[in-house]
């Protein structure tokens, strides 16, 4: 450890990635992403789901070959290559192997001899606080314990960089907090033997709590829109005003959009017009959100971080709901605030039938696909149209899964609004009410 090596651990340059057919109309998930990773830092990739941050992480792990761009590890050489290891959101444990065997799996692939494998695995298991569970199978463990196994398995191969893909998002709040604290302790004490951590998260507070640097991703396509340095000393306190301010700030950045897109509602979701990929958001959830914002203490306008806390939601869960309301012109999002429109206030006050009417008007007027289906049904004398036709139209504009999800979302909304009916067994849209 004589001279300090000032080369980066990791260089990501101009990485672009397209999903789907090469050459054909694929979906751009990563656009021109640059990233460097230095020694001794935790960097968070923060963004909405579908912003390509997991794709970037997998590219760095070597699991995906990005369409264009370069990923290099300047520090590594033949004698001591830079090793990366990964922790998965779903833990990705082999259910048929015991804890010990799961931890050993990476060493086994490297043909490390059984004795060394065993002692190194035991050391990692010990480090991560799993002693006593060596012979348990994953299905006997709680979620937190399973992720510990995932962590031990990643650490035992002695990585330079630890990649973590939303490592705590499948855990309940308390377990996640314990695991975060334990991980930070190990990191601060330098006991994990890793140089740097790169983690993907959609949880803003988690990012501010753990990271030294946060890269905020925009979605559609994924780009880095902001780099935020977190200078707060560890251990960080969530109640600290500086901490709160930083969280608020990031909320504002993540709801900010390109003003050019603002007018048409485009840019909220990927795609334009009827090609917009819509999320599946339940009408009950939308109604609930409007009622909450309309009632005290918010009175029609709420700060998103406060709202998220009041509802026990994470930002990633809240955003699609809020944005669907914005698409429907029932709410406006600005600077980390959500504000109900007049129609939304009317909706909250109304009875069931009036609510449905208001929703139907907005659905037909502002959701292009719903309007399109309704127009086709109105034009036909039979007032019937096969759903396959619209599915085909959508599949020209987006992937099959997105088309499926979008159509399902619109069907749910239209059924609630009684804007048009859908017969599942015949796969048919109709105008008549089932009475």
């Amino acid at each position, binding site marked *: 450890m004589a001279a300090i090596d000032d080369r980066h651990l990791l260089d990501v340059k101009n990485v672009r990635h397209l999903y789907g057919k090469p050459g054909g109309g694929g979906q751009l998930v990563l656009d021109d992403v640059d990233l460097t990773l230095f020694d001794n830092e935790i960097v968070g990739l923060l963004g909405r789901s579908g912003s390509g941050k997991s794709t970037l992480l997998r590219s760095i792990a070597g*699991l995906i070959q990005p369409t264009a761009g370069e990923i290099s590890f300047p520090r590594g050489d033949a004698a001591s290559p830079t090793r990366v290891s*990964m922790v*998965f959101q779903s*833990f*990705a444990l*082999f*259910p048929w192997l015991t804890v010990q065997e799961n931890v050993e799996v990476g060493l*086994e692939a490297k043909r490390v001899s059984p004795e060394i494998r065993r002692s190194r695995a035991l050391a990692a298991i010990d480090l991560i606080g799993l002693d006593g569970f060596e012979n348990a199978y*994953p299905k006997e463990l709680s979620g937190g314990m399973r992720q510990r196994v995932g962590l031990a398995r990643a650490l035992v*191969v002695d990585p330079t960089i630890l990649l973590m893909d939303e490592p705590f998002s499948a855990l309940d709040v308390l377990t996640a907090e314990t695991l975060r604290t334990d991980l930070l302790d190990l990191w601060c004490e330098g006991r994990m033997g890793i140089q740097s951590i790169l983690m993907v998260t959609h949880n803003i507070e988690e990012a501010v709590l753990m990271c030294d640097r946060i890269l905020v991703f925009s979605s559609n396509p994924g780009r880095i829109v902001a780099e935020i340095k977190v200078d707060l000393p560890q251990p960080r306190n969530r109640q600290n005003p500086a901490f709160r301010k930083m969280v608020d700030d990031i909320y504002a950045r993540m709801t900010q959009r390109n003003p050019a897109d603002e007018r048409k509602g485009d840019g909220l979701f990927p795609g334009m017009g009827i090609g917009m990929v819509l999320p599946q958001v339940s009408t009950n959830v939308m109604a609930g959100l409007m009622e909450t914002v309309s009632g005290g203490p918010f009175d029609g306008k709420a700060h998103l971080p406060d709202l998220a806390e009041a509802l026990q939601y994470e930002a990633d869960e809240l955003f699609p709901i809020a944005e669907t309301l914005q698409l429907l012109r029932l709410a406006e999002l600005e600077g980390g605030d959500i504000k109900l429109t007049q129609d939304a206030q009317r909706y909250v006050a109304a009875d069931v039938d009036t609510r449905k009417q208001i929703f139907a008007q907005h659905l037909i007027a502002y959701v292009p696909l719903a309007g399109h289906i309704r127009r086709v049904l109105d034009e036909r004398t039979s007032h019937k149209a096969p759903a396959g036709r619209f599915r085909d139209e959508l599949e020209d504009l987006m992937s099959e899964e997105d088309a499926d999800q979008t159509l399902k979302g619109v069907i749910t909304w239209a059924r609630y609004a009684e804007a048009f009916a859908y017969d599942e067994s015949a796969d048919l849209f109709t105008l008549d009410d089932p009475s």
Partner: protein
Amino acid sequence: MVFLSGDRPGSRPLARFLRVGVAPSWADLIAFLLLAATAVLIVRGAGEMSEPLSRLRTTPVTLDVARLPEYALLTTLRMFAALGASLLFTFTVATLAAKNRKAELLIVPALDILQSVPILGFLTFTVTFFMGLFPGRQLGVECAAIFAIFTSQAWNMAFSFYQSLRTIPNDLDEVSRQFGFSPWRRFVRLELPFATPGLVWNVMMSMSGGWFFVVASEAITVGNTTIALPGIGSWLALAIERQDMKAVAIGVGAMAVVILLYDQLVFRPFVAWADKFRFEQTASQDRPGSWVYDLVRRVRWLRLAVAPLGWPARAMTAIDWPIPRLALQPVRLGPQTSRVIDGLWIAVLAAASVAAVWFLWTFLARTLNLQDAFVAFGYGLATLVRVVVLIALTSLIWVPIGVWIGLRPAWAERLQPIAQFLAAFPANVLFPFVVVVIVALHADPNVWLSPLMVLGTQWYILFNVIAGASAIPSDLKEAAGIFGMRGWQWWRQVALPGIFPYYVTGAITASGGSWNASIVAEAVTWGDKHLEAVGLGSYIAKATAAGDYGRVALGVAVMSIFVIAFNRMLWRPMYRFAERRLRLD
């Protein structure tokens, strides 16, 4: 038939229905033609190589009870030899299909068709072929028998394995790639364990069917040659020939003992062991139990005694083939090049199909004319009527009984293993009892031989319905009780929808099995008395006995077409409906 391991007792066949579309596709047609041409080609080649069958000498089978254990052992060994061959086939062909898109295009439809081909019709061909390979030796006939069992086992196992390989969870795949698993390690650590539960259940179904074929294939008459391999099947054949009812009864008893031992000592422990490979992160409530497995785990000396069984597994994980660290960069083909290669592949397949059509035509045209085809088709219709009527009748009987049992857990627990045992029991050993009655009463064989076709296969309906009825959630049952649903409304809205997916699974298996069984059920013998029912089964059986390859081929082809059409037009739409609308999860 491919079963998912998910629902234990009445597993659902999934893979066969995964391919969307009811109409036969081009891939099916091509696969069918190529398979048929290959089969005929093999027989012709073998025919030239083989010596006259009459020269074969085998140790004569005797009805000596002292030799029965030996016969039983030999029969069982044949089963396991075939199982080994099926596993080998599964691991190679299914892996190839899962990893190579071009191979997949051919293998998947081919497996689908092979599942529907009546295996018993094959016997003629396979005997001829293997006798040709080992002229004048018992080994040839052994191979033919083993091959017959193999053909009844391999396809669904391969399908299940292929299906598992295609559905490997993404995250585990990523872990394996991230750690740089070698292909062998990937197979041992990921693919094989992940596929194990599905494979085990398909092995069980295969073995159930296999007992039927081992019995049928041990004593074969092709032309004027009769071959009898030492085994329970030959014992029964001899007993039938001598009209020795006592010997038949002893043979049936021996079969029952063999299956019981196999079930308790081999299969249940195996299933209980395989449970640890089930891909789920939560421990399941009802784990398959086996007293033998528990005993072995608890008793120290037994554990030591069976420890050698674990050695191959340990050896498999320990070895690591020294894969040359060649930079195996996958060749990146431009879209243009890969399109050209695809085109070439399609052209090769097209050429092969044309050649197959021409070849089949010349083969069949030499011995047969169009009228034969019409005759065979007519017989096919007769057998079709039997299958439909019998499945309907057995459904009417077993659905209410199965539901009644399934709703009473105490009964279900006791009767389910019996139903599974009955499904595995080779019904053909029971034929003589029925035949004796028909002969004695001078009943019309056209009607009364028919039940033999479902004698063994009806149990699939029963145990699937039991499983379905046990799986109806108790909250649904309680809701039905609170709202006072009973009578027809209860059947229509609770019981029938609840069991329907399971029932379809059982009925598919039963109908497929019945087609197959028609070959032995429509033409039976008791001593010197021959009984025959008009149908495609007896048509194939007669052609086999006469050594008329052309008509055997025609009969088998027509039957395959019937089975495939029946599956596509009836079962597959029903299954898809069940999957879409009646899933309870």
